[in-house]
């Protein structure tokens, strides 16, 4: 049985300008100890997908309208709040995009980590604090005893993100969801944080879902990749396969637009056009206005996700 099984997930935003289908029929699964990358441009629904896994989406305006998220066999979508709280921070840890804003400014980082430990393990105050210090050491913070008593504003961005990662790992979760964990950081710090995630995955065997818009980030960190476009899953493939033989025209475009030192392109290639506005999605395949391979059926029907060999699944009429 897989650790996480997302089936046909749909998250809609109910706004004044109409319903936005932020996540529309997305399915994927993850086995224990494995890792999955979710890639796409901003606004493609990847963060909504990540937040849905623990039902952390802002309600209202967002709501999970259909589908199921089975974690260890239990459906998160229909789970009672006490069960959900027992899951959050305990079985599933979350790393957020911006470490500058995701820590509470009025509590020390040690308190913030120990809080999760006390909640889920019912440890004493001292034991929870000791665990917080231990976790800080685990995520590579020098002098963790001192840092535990520091407030977030006394730490740098990279240190804060290590704290957030430590907080997510404090209760030994089976799954770690990282929502763009390096986007808000300097490039040198980005590499350190990615290295840390890689090391932790190896040491702890935690399942990881890594959400990013940066293909370079996932290349050597995840086993499988899901590519999302405008709320839809367009391609699902093992990571090597995705880089070696991308199938969907959108994935190909994404890979072409990654700058490379090996080819002698003078201009960086881009994908023509922009993501359509959320409340005015085209009929049929949502990528059709930007697609070079577009044909009549693309304007009429949404392409189903089909097997394309080599473990790749792709949703494109041109390939079926």
């Amino acid at each position, binding site marked *: 049985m897989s650790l996480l099984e997302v089936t046909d997930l749909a998250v809609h935003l109910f706004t004044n300008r109409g319903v936005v289908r932020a996540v529309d029929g997305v399915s994927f699964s993850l086995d224990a100890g494995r890792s999955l990358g979710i890639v796409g441009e901003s606004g493609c629904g990847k963060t909504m997908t990540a937040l849905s896994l623990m039902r*952390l989406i802002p309600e209202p305006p967002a709501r999970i309208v259909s589908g199921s998220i089975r974690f260890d066999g239990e459906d998160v979508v229909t789970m009672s709040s006490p069960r959900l709280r027992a899951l959050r921070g305990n079985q599933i840890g979350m790393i957020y995009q911006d470490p500058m804003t995701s820590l509470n*400014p009025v509590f020390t980082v040690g308190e913030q980590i120990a809080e999760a430990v006390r909640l889920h393990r019912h440890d004493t105050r001292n034991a929870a604090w000791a665990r917080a210090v231990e976790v800080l050491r685990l995520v590579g913070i020098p002098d963790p005893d001192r840092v535990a008593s520091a407030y977030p504003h006394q730490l740098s961005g990279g240190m804060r993100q290590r704290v957030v990662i430590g*907080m997510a790992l404090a209760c030994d979760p089976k799954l770690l969801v990282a929502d763009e964990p390096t986007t808000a950081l300097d490039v040198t710090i980005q590499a350190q944080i990615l290295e840390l995630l890689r090391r932790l995955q190896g040491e702890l065997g935690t399942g990881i879902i890594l959400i990013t818009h940066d293909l370079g980030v996932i290349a050597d960190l995840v086993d499988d990749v899901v590519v999302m476009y405008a709320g839809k899953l367009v391609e699902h493939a093992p990571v090597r396969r995705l880089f070696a033989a991308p199938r969907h025209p959108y994935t190909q475009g994404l890979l072409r637009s990654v700058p490379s030192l090996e080819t002698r392109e003078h201009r960086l290639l881009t994908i023509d056009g922009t993501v359509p506005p959320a409340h005015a999605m085209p009929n049929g395949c949502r990528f059709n206005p930007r697609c070079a391979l577009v044909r009549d059926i693309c304007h009429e029907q949404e392409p189903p996700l089909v097997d394309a060999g080599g473990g790749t699944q792709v949703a494109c009429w041109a390939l079926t």
Partner: protein
Amino acid sequence: MIGYILRRLLEVIPTVLLVLTLVFFALRIMPGDPAIAALGEFATPDAIARFREKLGLNQPLYMQYFGFIAQSLTADFGTSMNNGAPIGDLLGQALPYTISLALAATSIGIVIGLPLGAMTAVHRDGKLDAFGRLFALIGFSLPDFYFGILLLLVFSLHLDWFPMLGGGKGFFDQLHHLVLPAITLGLVMAAFTMRLTRSSLLEVLKRDYVRTARGKGVAERWVIFKHALRNALIPVTTGMGIYLLTTLSGTITVELVFSRPGLGTLLIGGVSARDYTLVQAGLVVFAFFVVVVNLLTDLLCAAIDPRITLR
């Protein structure tokens, strides 16, 4: 934190000196001679000269100024120009009534305003929120003198639950006399606190760290009362400090309405009798209040928000 407290205490010194200077010169540039005001237009030049000498008004201005500063700092305000009573005694009698009123009103404001503000923010646009909005509207739009008279009419005159006038003798009687004036001032304070808490908490609830707390599995009640409210309290504390200062002048009206023998009543009496020394002392005491309230507000903010002391 201790360093911060010391620093803030040191900063009080120039503030107090500045305030005393302003009070001194404000009274000196007021038109009219205090001696003539006190003795009447037909006083003999001899009497006026004696009066001026007694009050030190014949000395050069800078001597008067330093004398005044020294007296103020030692809380020696001299005697009333009108009846010769020591001003220190007058203030000592009046102050407890004003301080108890301000404290009671603030307590009512916090006890009603904070929870109501928090609950209306959490149940935004619900029935409770509508009630809260109505409450704030009433609290803000009723002038305190009018509301005070209304309370007097209903609860003193018709129902006879509370006394009409005065400050009361003995602890329980004084408490009994305090209820209506405290409600009069406290209602506005509660309305203000409620609005401030509501908007501040709504803002904080959108922050990422609130989501982080939920993501850790913290129960919603604790997300709000531990993680969000403490952050929301920072602007609320500052706002209430400022508001408390305006309430101090509010005590003057309320004391008049309820005939409480407090500082406001004493000052109004001093002004209408042109009792310069009394008014001067009253202003110093009010200014002292302002400094103390500001200091307490700052220290409270620093206790809530660790970022303040480390700046």
